[in-house]
């Protein structure tokens, strides 16, 4: 099956989440992977090492995750769709350069197959403990996009979506999965390539002399020239003006740049955010869940309905930017909200913030076992 010179393996497959993610990346046009092995994301690197040369792409195993993300930013600036894949410890090492990618508006994808932390933690066990780090891990103020798949099919579909969002908004986009989703095997439908939506970064329409690399269009996103295309531009992690010139002490330039970097995501939340709503119309108890925890949540909601509980599910596909408005609307009608997470309570804080006076309760799980539907139903009864 890996003996193939096609980028898109149209057909029905039985794959693990990690492998589906790799295939999604190739289908999206990813042609550069820089990474460093780490459980439970290693299979993505292995698949890419085998598949990329078959289709003329580049796999390189760097000396660490700092180098991996640096190489990925470089490849992106040299015109490739590029990605890396890691887990908690590697994700921590990447943080400084995630800020560089934000500041220089490098489109790229980072996959984090979350395991148990802190530190080396539990390498082969699932966790959802990097959710806040994904949003806030690098210093400074910024916005990124993060998607949370809850099935192997979504590992394929959402990886493509990550690339499309990265190219649209010139921002690092994260696929935040967990060990269970990364390692479990399910059926995956890979559509014909002409049915897959692919978005490419917009290119400058002006001649090099008139090109200002960080001058945005109305959507706040600047068109992107790449190295070697004759535009001879400069990019820097320092605060810069639209021409890319460092502006290290100008208050207006700092304000303008940081507001735009945040603004290009914040003003587009409606187009970015994806959720799945299940029986929310008349729900008294709403479960807000993402990733692995949302699978048990779905069963729990169905079960609760058969027992006369008016339960609903808001499954977050996009976790960053956080769907604040939507949660606030739902909270107005709901009597209680339950947030099952495989951590000590991370995204629940965002839910609480949006829900205002509606009671929100956390169902925290750590370690090997994901939530059971029965536990979530019990929690609904307690509310």
């Amino acid at each position: 099956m890996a003996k193939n010179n096609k980028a898109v393996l149209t057909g029905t497959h039985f794959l693990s989440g990690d492998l589906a993610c790799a295939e999604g990346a190739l289908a999206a046009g990813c042609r550069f992977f820089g990474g460093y092995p780490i459980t439970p994301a290693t299979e993505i690197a292995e698949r890419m090492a085998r598949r990329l040369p078959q289709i003329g792409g580049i796999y390189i195993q760097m000396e660490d995750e700092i180098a991996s993300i640096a190489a990925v930013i470089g490849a992106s600036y040299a015109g490739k769709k590029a990605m890396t894949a890691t887990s908690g410890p590697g994700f921590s090492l990447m943080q400084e350069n995630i800020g560089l990618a934000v500041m220089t508006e490098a489109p790229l994808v980072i996959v984090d197959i979350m395991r148990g932390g802190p530190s080396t933690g539990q390498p082969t066990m699932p966790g959802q403990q990097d959710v806040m780090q994904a949003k806030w891990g690098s210093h400074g103020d910024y916005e990124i996009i993060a998607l949370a798949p809850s099935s192997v099919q979504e590992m394929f579909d959402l990886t493509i979506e990550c690339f499309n969002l990265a190219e649209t908004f010139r921002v690092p986009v994260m696929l935040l999965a967990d060990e269970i989703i990364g390692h479990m095997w399910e059926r995956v439908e890979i559509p014909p390539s002409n049915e897959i939506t692919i978005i490419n970064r917009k290119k400058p329409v002006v001649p090099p002399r008139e090109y200002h690399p960080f001058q945005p269009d109305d959507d706040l996103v600047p068109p992107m020239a790449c190295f070697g295309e004759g535009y001879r531009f400069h990019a820097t992690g320092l605060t810069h003006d639209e021409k890319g010139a460092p502006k290290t002490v100008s208050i207006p330039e700092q304000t303008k740049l940081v507001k735009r970097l945040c603004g290009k995501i914040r003003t587009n939340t409606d187009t970015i955010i994806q959720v799945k709503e299940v029986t929310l119309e008349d729900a008294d108890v709403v479960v807000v869940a993402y990733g692995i925890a949302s699978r048990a949540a779905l069963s729990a909601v169905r079960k609760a309905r058969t027992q006369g509980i008016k339960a609903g599910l808001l499954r977050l596909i996009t976790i960053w930017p956080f769907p604040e408005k939507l949660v606030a609307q739902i909270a107005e009608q709901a009597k209680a909200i339950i947030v099952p997470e495989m951590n000590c309570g991370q995204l629940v804080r965002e839910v609480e913030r949006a829900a205002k006076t509606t009671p929100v309760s956390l169902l925290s799980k750590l370690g090997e076992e994901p939530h059971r539907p029965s536990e979530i139903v019990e929690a609904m009864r307690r509310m």
Partner: protein
Amino acid sequence: MNNKDLMLQHPLAKYLRQERMPHIWCEGCGNGILLNSFLEALDELQLDLDNIVVISGIGCIGRAAGYVNVDSFHTTHGRAIPFATGVKLANPQLKVVVISGDGDLFAIGGNHFIHAARRNVDIKVICANNFNYGMTGGQYGPTTPLEAWTTTTPYGNIEHPFNLVHLAAASGAVYAARWTTLQVRRLKASIKKALQKEGFSLIEVISPCPEIYDRYNKLGTAVEVMKWFKLVSEVHKAYDPAKAVITKNRIIIGEFVDIEKPSYGRLLREMTAQVKEDLEGENTK
């Protein structure tokens, strides 16, 4: 005629982003000489400027990338080499040059340096070695000599410095040379050679930092430091890099490594071509 028309253009002006001038470097700093040598090398080789990328890390010399009128990128501290690796592999047509400092390349970025040299990635690294962290005000770094005074070695440096050309040789570089900012013609020739050679190259440029390191260590003005370079520089051909330790009384300069070895990019392209050929063979069977 206005004053502008009367002004003489610097012969290398077209290689600089004029609007970014004046540069941030102190009077007498060696960084200007290094940059000038690089631009002269570009000029003499008449390379297509659209195909050159200059990448820097963070430090005084790290600002070089912003001044050169080619595609350029100012990365985070220490990460110019892995960034450059991504650029070179993604677009092999580009000539990729890293210009950065001793601290950036060999302290925080040291691991990247040895691995890029080991892989023999086709990038050219030009290091301004001023024996300290200039940008942050003169702390010691991986090339600071024993006993030197810096703001973080107030009792004298007790760490042994790296010998950069030895490190490059041991790590697998195909080209390693050392010059001081005094030997500008040789430095330029070395840069030209590296630009035309395939593989990982290091050019170490011993560079005055009159404002900070040289002042703290009472080495005198920039001119006096240049005189010191003149006094202690010894040019050798193919000198054993292991023995080229820098001391107060002797700086061995010259080319230490100049060998041929297929670059990572070449091996990658050959492997990729083979994989494709094998697949096509299988599919037509």
